[in-house]
């Protein structure tokens, strides 16, 4: 069996090569964040400082999640369009590891979206965004990136079975963005949405990111948010591994791998 880390890295590298080969990434990663930041800051103009932070971090999360979700659906379709899905599945490596590499690569690319938003907010719109604890901010951001990637894996497994991944990704982008509290605190949402919010790793991640951005003295809540997010992320990976196994076996049994 090929080493897991090599397969993940190789899939990550291949996805990055494709991103770099395709200048379309400028639209979701530079132009869209610029427009988003402009709209959000215009809406929150006159509000106190924390609203600006919500707008900027929310926009960044949206980019990261949108990219990952889009990429999760696209990962399988991409292989179908290239005609490489059979070759990849026929290799001895685990398909989950291949998609993990792609998913991390795309979440990382989505992170450039957040960086673009931060830079645009600070240098173009002159929003004061002093980060209280830059090290923990970066730390929580990277862990949130991994959690978002792991959530993307769960969706990617089901996309093996369908050609309509794009429809699902379009439908899933905003609900998760809202219930994870990326744009505004989940306390503002109806209580019946809380369970859905709590099982999302990014909900805890964004709380930790905000805590690191606003408070120099890191509260215990920061570490508990990080701990819960990590536990949820591990659960995502376990569920995704099981789903991939089930889905791959089903598609090999039904002969639907390529023509799904």
């Amino acid at each position, binding site marked *: 069996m*090929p080493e897991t880390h090599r*397969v993940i890295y190789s899939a990550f590298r291949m996805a990055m090569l494709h991103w770099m080969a395709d200048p379309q990434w400028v639209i979701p990663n530079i132009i869209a964040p610029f427009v988003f930041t402009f709209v959000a800051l215009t809406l929150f103009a006159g509000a106190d400082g924390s609203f600006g932070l919500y707008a900027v971090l929310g926009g960044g999360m949206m980019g990261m999640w949108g990219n990952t979700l889009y990429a999760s659906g696209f990962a399988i379709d991409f292989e179908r369009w*290239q005609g490489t899905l059979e070759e*990849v599945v026929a290799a001895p490596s685990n398909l989950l590891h*291949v998609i993990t590499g792609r998913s991390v690569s795309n979440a990382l690319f989505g992170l450039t979206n957040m960086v673009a938003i931060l830079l645009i907010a600070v240098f173009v719109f002159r929003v004061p965004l002093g980060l209280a604890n830059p090290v923990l901010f970066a730390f929580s951001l990277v862990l949130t990136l991994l959690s978002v990637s792991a959530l993307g894996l769960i969706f990617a497994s089901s996309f093996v079975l369908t050609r309509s991944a794009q429809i699902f990704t379009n439908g899933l982008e905003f609900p998760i963005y809202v219930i994870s509290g990326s744009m505004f605190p989940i306390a503002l949402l109806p209580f019946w949405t809380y369970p859905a919010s709590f099982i999302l790793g990014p909900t805890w991640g964004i709380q930790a990111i905000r805590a690191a951005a606003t408070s120099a003295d890191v509260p215990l809540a920061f570490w508990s948010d990080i701990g819960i997010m990590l536990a949820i992320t591990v659960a995502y990976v376990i569920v995704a591994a099981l789903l991939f196994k089930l889905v791959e076996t089903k598609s090999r049994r039904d002969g639907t791998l390529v023509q799904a």
Partner: protein
Amino acid sequence: MRRKKTQVTAVKDVSFEVDYGELFGLVGPNGAGKTTTIKMLTTMLIPTSGVAKVLGYDVKKDVTKVRQNIGIVLGGERGLYTRVNAIDNLRYFADLYGVPVSVRDKRIKELLQFMGLWDRAKDRVETYSKGMKQRLHLARGLINDPQLIFLDEPTTGLDPEIAKETRNMIRELIEKGKTILLTTHYMFEADELCKRVGIIRNGEVVALDTPSGLKKYVMDTSVVEVQGFGITENEVAKFKGIPDVLAVSADLNEDKQVLKIQTTKGSEIISEVQQILKNSRIYDLNIKEPTLEDAYLRLIEGSRK
């Protein structure tokens, strides 16, 4: 709206063995079950019943072992990452197959040199010709240095020169000691390359022998080949109704139509041919020795009756 699911038995009771170092051919019409057979042997499909062993490993139980030890070339222009170069394509699959890092780069270079692609190794695959892509497919299929290679219609859609080049590559692989299972539509290709050929139709192997052994099925026959213009499907059907005609094949789409009539009557049938085709223009009419294609046609037609 509802989509009705139907079950189709693509392959039934197929049984054959391939020797180490052999080039074994599987031929049959479209939908015969060739690709399904290959997909089951390469673990991409799970057989509903029966046993299949590849290099001693069970395709249902030892999936990873089978995958590690075989190479697959599905052919066609797709199946490659066209936005990146040949080296990155091969490096990716080398990692997916667990080729040790210490040998990976050396093997990629050797394969690209063997395929005559080294000079263009750093160019994007989208700039390659069909023939170059086909050679890169072969290189990818060899990246894990497999003992057994599955080639699924590797020359379909290629122009004659590139197809010939591909066949030469396949010969070289056999000389290097590889075992190959090849599927093809082209009988001359199977005749030229394969040690043994299995003819598959409707998911069943209807004959399995050496090319010369298969030709013995049509030793008692001769083939009347007509080249003409204006030949209709109705006229072709009339030939099929003649008792001593064993098989008829017709290519009516080209400007120069070709009709092949396999018969035990020999030259006696010529007057009947002229009578049936009296409204068509005949450019040429020959009586030929039967080929593997004629044997194939007879076996396929025979299994239909």
